[in-house]
């Protein structure tokens, strides 16, 4: 309670968000101001703070815990944040997005994400969830001129509100079970159940919480918002939310289900297995016929959620570490891919239809090559990050004997390769009309370089990061 160390990273982010707001307030109309810089500083600071906090296992207010697990997620989120900021510069101007609000909301969302992953109290998780959700709803609809944006935002919002009601109901049952919303107390209450047969309340709590999490990670059948929201949102926001929200939600998901609700494993593993199976299948299968790149990547994101769930279902150390590692690889790959889409787009032309990519290798060979790298990483080709991530997840699943799920996983990833390659086909094997494509700001170059290096580094020399991921779960659970 007296120790504030654990909240330092998220406080830094929150402060930078407020700074961005203030800066926007004092900005004279027409003046250009590098507001994104606050974000960069904030994310960098938070990352730095997380590094310093490593192994400290600090706790604040009894509800925020800076164990290595949450710090690892912090670092993923900071990576997401930094890349987003780097891609945002100029992109948001082209897309007519109000800068100050955009940066502030993004940073608030990040703050909420960090909070969610670090919280050890269901109530705080709920509040954090709402912070990040509301920010993201607003970001989705931030382009006022876009009808699609508003529609997407409302759909996302309404379904999100429903799901948080379910989530909240789950918290209520958990509360009824133990008289507290603290995870450790719920855990105690659960493990003190005589005979091990959990009462109806525990089942209801597990079910409702699972629904809430599954919505956030967009698992089938709670995924319906995903394609619409991803398509309707500004591309850069799509990039941000597809990676950040997933990371935060999975952080909390893992924490709640693999520590607190671990005694109920036998109950929820079959359930999540079913969901994961359908998620992988539906995500990839429906992705096959998409012609909008963002929508396609939305379905891919659904499928990836399915893969990630395998880590939770495995419920072993490999699985937990695999989720962390996978989140990182997915974050850099997906941000890279969507970042490029964002960099190519403008308010008039989102550049998110497949045919927009025709002949990109001619007009922008560098971008086309990088896009290919990111897509192949998403598809799980060695020697790129995505391959190691997938391998790790499947290794966890196989370790626990979930062969069927692992086989579904690998086969669907083959199908997913088909649609990733459709973009490659467009870029390299199809002649396209010479489109006017905007120039690349320096920050974006830096961001792409960073993402590429990360994808290659994680693919070729994953050892260090894998060890970190393993270490970060072994210290806490």
């Amino acid at each position: 309670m007296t120790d504030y160390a654990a909240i330092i990273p998220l406080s830094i982010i929150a402060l930078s968000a407020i700074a961005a707001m203030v800066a926007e307030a004092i900005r004279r109309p027409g003046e250009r101001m590098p507001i994104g810089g606050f974000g960069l500083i904030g994310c960098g600071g938070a990352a730095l703070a997380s590094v310093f906090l490593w192994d400290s296992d600090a706790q604040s207010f009894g509800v925020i815990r800076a164990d290595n697990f949450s710090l690892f997620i912090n670092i993923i989120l900071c990576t997401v944040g930094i890349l987003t900021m780097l891609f945002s510069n100029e992109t948001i101007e082209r897309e007519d997005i109000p800068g100050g609000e955009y940066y502030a909301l993004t940073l608030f969302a990040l703050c909420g994400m960090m909070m969610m992953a670090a919280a050890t109290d269901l109530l705080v998780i709920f509040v954090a969830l709402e912070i990040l959700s509301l920010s993201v709803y607003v970001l989705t609809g931030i382009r006022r001129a876009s009808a699609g944006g508003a529609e997407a935002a409302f759909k996302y919002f309404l379904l999100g509100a429903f799901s948080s009601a379910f989530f909240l109901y789950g918290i209520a049952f958990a509360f009824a079970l133990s008289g507290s919303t603290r995870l450790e107390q719920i855990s105690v209450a659960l493990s003190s159940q005589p005979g091990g047969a959990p009462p109806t309340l525990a089942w209801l709590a597990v079910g409702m919480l699972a629904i809430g999490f599954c919505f956030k990670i967009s698992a089938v059948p709670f995924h319906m918002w995903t394609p619409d929201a991803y398509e309707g949102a500004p591309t850069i926001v799509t990039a941000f939310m597809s990676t950040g929200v997933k990371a935060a939600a999975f952080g909390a998901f893992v924490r709640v289900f693999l520590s607190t609700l671990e005694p109920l494993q036998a109950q929820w593993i079959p359930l999540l297995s079913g969901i994961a199976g359908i998620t992988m299948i539906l995500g990839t299968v429906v992705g096959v016929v998409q012609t909008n790149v963002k929508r396609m990547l939305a379905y891919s994101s659904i499928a990836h959620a399915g893969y990630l769930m395998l880590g939770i279902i495995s419920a072993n150390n490999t699985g937990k570490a695999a989720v962390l590692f996978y989140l990182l690889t997915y974050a850099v790959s997906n941000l890279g891919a969507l970042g490029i889409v964002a960099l190519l787009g403008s308010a008039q032309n989102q550049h998110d239809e497949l045919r927009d990519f025709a002949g990109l290798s001619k007009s922008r060979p560098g971008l086309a090559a990088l896009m290919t790298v990111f897509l192949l990483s998403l598809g799980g080709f060695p020697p790129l990050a995505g391959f190691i991530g997938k391998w790790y997840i499947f290794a966890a699943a196989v370790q626990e004997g979930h062969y069927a799920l692992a086989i579904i996983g690998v086969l669907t990833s083959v199908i997913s390769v088909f649609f990733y390659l459709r973009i490659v086909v467009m870029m390299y094997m199809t002649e396209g009309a010479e489109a006017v494509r905007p120039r690349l700001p320096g920050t974006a170059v830096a961001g792409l370089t960073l993402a590429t290096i990360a994808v290659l580094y994680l693919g070729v020399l994953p050892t260090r990061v894998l060890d970190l991921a393993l270490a970060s779960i072994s210290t806490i659970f």
Partner: protein
Amino acid sequence: MLSIIVFLPLVGAVLVLLAGGRGDRPDREPLVRNLALAVSLATFAATLWLWARFDPSSGDYQFVEQHAWIPAFGIQYFIGVDGISLFLIVLTGFLTPLALLSSWESVHKSVRNFSFFMLALETAMLGVFVSIDLFLFYVFWDAMLIPMYFLIGVWGYDRRVYAAVKFILYTMAGSVLMLIAIIGLAWSYAATTGAPSFSLIDLYNVELTRQTERWMFLAFAVAFAIKVPLFPFHTWLPDAHVEAPTAGSVILAGVLLKMGTYGFLRFAFPLFPAAALEFAPWLGLLAVIGIIYGALVAMVQPDMKKLVAYSSVSHLGFVVLGLAATNMQGIQGSVYQMLNHGVSTGGLFMIVGMLSDRRHTRLISEYGGLKAVMPRLVAAFLIITLASIALPMTNGFIGEFLILLGAFKWHSTMAAFAATGVILSAVYMLWMFQRVNYGPVTNEKNSRLPDLTPREWAQMVPIVAMCIFMGVFPKVFTDPMEASITKVIDRVHSREAAVVEKTAPGFRLPASGSPNLASADTARPGASPGPQAPSELRTPSPEPRAADND
């Protein structure tokens, strides 16, 4: 040193990218081409050096490099060369410069990228052949798909996109199951020793239940069968070949297909000996079907590339048949046939490429009477054709003969059916050869085609020379293989005792009361003879495996 060889092409690939400059720079084309060629030649020289330094008397891995890679999972950067992989490496080094040469005139679109992918592909191929760690192997195995995908998809013919996508999805679908099996194997190892390992040598010690072993073998087998391609997994091949650019076809036929058979020999068989012996008759059966089927379908193809592609199905069927026999002649013949097929089919694709460079068609009916127009090209064509139909004193004969010999010792009926391939290959190859080269020049466009250019000479001479050299002096190649193959055979048969009675009938003609001269030890070459030896020799012996570890 081995690493340097493996990654030299990749370094070259990066250099090529840099040399190519930004954007479209046709003026840099010669530089890029020559640089790529120089790198591939240097790699070839390095592989030859490897051969020169190779100790043929040892069956162990040589030039071993072993570093921890992902220690938490026992994944290592563990590479080495033995007698089986040595020549496949040399073959890769040999074919890549030739493939680059074959694209000299035909590829003009983005030469930089083309050269980049070719060289990157070479690294991946070399990597597949040197990997001893299964994870590393899989990484190279899958990584190889990407450059090939681009080579087909960007520089191919009309339906290139379809073919490229089919190629990559088909192959991936097979190989991902293998990935699951690899992981399962590593965990099985962990179950006995506490920590997972992906090292092939460690994994030899895994004790699997029969059922698990069966499933894992099947997972490996499907992956490799698709790559081979074994009937009925072959349908990607004709499409890929037909649409691929010449260089792609050469590499695809020359090296990529070998990865499947190499995989059987290196991984599937030694890792799952009992299952391998159990399924060997089925593999053999599919191989024989493939031999006949491929030949029959090849016979009626109107497109030269497709014809050669189906002939590959037939030829690779021989290779698998030899492997399934799991005896010295069979396996040695198989490895030899892999090399042969690489050389001769690579050569055939180059020739088809030369023709289609000149005429922009590969339809047999468009040609005719070429011998009068370009006698030198046709002479090379003839020799390679003869090598392909396994005329004695060409390379193909050695391989097919040894395979048939090995197969016959194992399963005489299959060998007899396989031998019909001898007839059929002559039918389809010579028919094609005749329609293309003999007769009057019926198509006016063919009447003034130029003969071999100096560059094409440079492609043809090595191929033709190899076809004949390998047919006359096979010992140069077979001797270094022998020790390694013996190890594989011992390994496979070490657990045979349990299944030998019911699954490996071997050849026993009813000799009507005469003493059976087929002494039992002929089934196990390399072992000391003696009629009662088999059962003793087949008991597992840990020593040879321990020796692997250095």
